[in-house]
């Protein structure tokens, strides 16, 4: 395994944009350390995950809007049992579901950076950290989270 600062091992599955092109702007944005979320051009509704149609007004006019990487922990979990070969020997890791108050409270999943045994509080403020995987076959950047301040 190469030297890196990745939270999870480098040989975890790599994200690639969906073949139909729906979420390519998101992944291109993370490469520029920009967090992009869909916002309806017709009614202003925030929407996540990526979809073709606004679920509020049924407009296809969905734009990609940069949002501040600030959120609140909505839920969390700490998987111990490795279900993927890359995770063998990694030990427990922390996953958070983060609400973005600046984007209509849409939710995003990421790892909570920090000690593997840290206490996690629902409602705690977190900020986005861009984890660039430049050495991947198709380079990509994950959005991770850490406690604010």
């Amino acid at each position, binding site marked *: 395994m190469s030297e890196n600062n990745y939270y*999870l091992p480098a040989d*975890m*599955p*790599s*994200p*690639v*944009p*969906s*073949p139909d092109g729906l*979420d390519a702007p998101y*992944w291109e944005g993370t490469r520029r350390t920009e967090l992009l979320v869909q916002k309806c051009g017709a009614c202003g509704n925030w929407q*996540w*995950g*990526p*979809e073709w149609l606004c*679920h509020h007004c049924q407009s296809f006019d969905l734009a990609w809007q940069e949002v501040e990487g600030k959120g609140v922990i*909505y*839920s*969390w*979990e*700490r*998987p*111990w*049992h490795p*279900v*993927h*070969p*890359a*995770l063998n020997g990694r030990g*427990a*890791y922390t*996953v958070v*579901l983060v609400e973005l108050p600046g984007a209509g409270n*849409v*939710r*995003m*999943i*990421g*790892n909570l950076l920090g000690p593997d045994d840290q206490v996690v509080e*629902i409602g705690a403020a977190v900020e986005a950290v861009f984890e660039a995987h430049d050495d991947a076959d*198709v380079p990509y950047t*994950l959005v991770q989270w850490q406690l604010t301040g």
Partner: protein
Amino acid sequence: MIDRSIRGKVAVAGIGESIYYKHGQSPDPEFVLALQAILKAAADAGIDPKEIDGFASYSNDRNDPSRIAAALGLPDLRFSNMHWGGGGGGVAAAVANGAAAIAAGYADCVVVFRALAQGQFRRFGEAMPDPTVSGDAAYMSPYGVMSPAQKYAMRATRFMHDYGVKNDVLRAIAMTSYQHAQNNPRAIRYGRPLDASTYDESRWIVEPVNRLYDCCQENDGAAALILVSAERARDLKQTPVYLIGAAQGSDHRCGAPVMNASRFASSSFTTVAPRLYRSAGVTPADIDVVQSYENFTTGVMMAVVEHGFCAPEEANEFFTLPNLSTSGGKMPLNTSGGNLAECYMHGLGLQLEAVRQIRGQSCNQVPDAKLAMNIAGPMVTPVSSVIMGSAEVL
């Protein structure tokens, strides 16, 4: 009660299952297990297997009805139905779909079946080691969210936070299934009781809600159930067990990508359960016994709450071993041992157990059970439930 309810129109006439095995231990191929279960259900009903003219299943069962019909030599295959999506959330819906076909006259004798040899195919609890992922998985797998335990713990953690539900509730649900399995010779965990300290000391699968004993088994086996019209059922060998009500689906944007369901901290039943009771014309207080699918004990807890058996704030007092046990409990639960301790037959074993309860044939019989609730696959979408009952409730 709604006018077009299935209530009283269709009955379960026969049930059957293969021997249940730990995953990888079935000596027979999955397709053979399916045939064994179907033939046992036909024998239980006292019908010639060639009377079967329809099939309903769920979760993309690999055993195609056309192949089964050819193997059985059926003269006329009239109904072939697969319920979309939802893993085990479709098991009650498959029963309902088969019943609807009979009510509509599409078929006269429908088999609801599930065959699953996780030892011969991929196990549900393992992730595919794909090098790249796209779509919904692109936002989860790279962060280590891949298995059902990992996908659904997030919902339960938030629910338990919102209502102050303690992990003791989950332990009581697990111990209930194991206690009931000790009287069930079919159960894989027969002769293997679970005590509180063993539960407490078991390893985390996903902290803070899924210990080892909170998670369903992975098994090899098959189960089948035969549906006929109420009139036909009254002429057959077994006491008819009637469909009293059925509902399926999920609430607003339940399937929204990347865990963005509007009501995320839920078992997905908030709109389904009220429709179920309206279709049946009964209330939770009328139900004598509950079979509630255990993918995880968290799902059982949330589904029982969302079916109105207790308020979420009452969960810590309601979910106790004495209260869930057939020996004197207020709400006897998972009386065969269920997915945790009888067999993970993708929930169809729980449907068979409800039939036994109404017939009076369970190895943990609830005295004089007239109405049985069957809840399928909580937290997925779509989910489903059915209520079964005796002739007395019609």
